[in-house]
């Protein structure tokens, strides 16, 4: 019943129910220029061997983080008020889960590798398992 009414309204009143986002040329060009700069620098750093590798890793991860924010603001039009704040809430929850999944996996697996008995890979090869088993 009420669904039918909704449909009627949209049938003859197009502009009415559109999302509140306003797509502006300025936002997209600003975002694009920033994204290009933030993409070119890490490629240049790696391909030109500008810094030493361990520093480069942190620097390019930093650039990726900044570019993430640029994309969020200028392309995905995120702000604390979109969808009554629920967009931001979902994003924050996702970031929390993401950090737990990523840091947890890396931490646990790193320690497992570090605490593995030395020579176990060789032992597996000797006892007839394929050399790929421990990889």
């Amino acid at each position, binding site marked *: *019943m*009420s669904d039918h*009414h*909704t449909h009627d*309204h*949209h049938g003859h*009143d*197009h*502009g*009415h*129910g*559109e*999302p*509140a*986002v*306003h*797509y*502006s*040329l300025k*936002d*997209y*060009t600003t*975002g*694009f220029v920033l*994204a*290009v700069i933030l*993409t070119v620098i*890490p*490629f240049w750093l*790696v*391909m030109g061997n500008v810094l030493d*590798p361990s520093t*480069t*890793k942190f620097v*390019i*991860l930093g*650039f*990726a983080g900044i*570019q*993430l924010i640029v*994309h*969020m603001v200028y*392309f*995905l039009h995120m702000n604390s008020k979109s*969808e*009554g704040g*629920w*967009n931001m809430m*979902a994003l924050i*929850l*996702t970031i929390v*889960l*993401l950090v737990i*999944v*990523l840091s947890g*996996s*890396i931490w646990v697996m790193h320690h497992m590798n570090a605490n593995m008995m030395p020579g176990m890979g060789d032992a597996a090869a000797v006892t007839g398992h394929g*050399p*790929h088993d421990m*990889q």
Partner: protein
Amino acid sequence: MSNTNATFPSASGGAAAVREYHVREHHPEQGTLLGFWIYLMSDCLLFASLFAAYAVLGRNYAGGPSGAELFDLPLVAINTAFLLVSSITFGFAMIAAQAKKLRSAMLWLGITGVLGACFLGLELYEFYHLIHEGAGPSRSGFLTAFFSLVGTHGLHVLFGIVWLVVLMFQLAKHGLSGENMRRLSCLSLFWHFLDVVWIFVFTFVYLMGVLP
């Protein structure tokens, strides 16, 4: 919703009641975008687990080739450019659609689709090349994680292109109606989201993969 049904027939002539009805019925429209956003967040978690798998397995070469030997950075740079430019052309399509310029919106959507197809073509070429060299997904833990992560992203782009083509037919048939604007907004979120994931793929997989 039940409240609306109760008030609407009793005051069918009253402007105030109709106005209230309008405000209440605003929600389903935004609900779609919020729901789609929540889907994208769950997709984030899918990619997070693939990234975690790559972080764990990314250096297990099993005596096979390493990232430094396999990755062709100029090719990755071109691919990144395709996806980034397709992001802004999709933005132009949204601006045109907002201004109710159907023809221009269709043109920009078409360009976006072609750029997406170029990205996908180049990625398939890279995969074919790797498998041909004997560096297929079964070669080592590193390559398994690499193919799962990059392949899943490519699959998303493929579905994005399918959606884009279907939406272009919808636009040609029904024009820039409220429904089609809603669909465009969802696809816009999806397309930009894929570009965001690609930032981390090229940084974490390719650029960090060639570093010792």
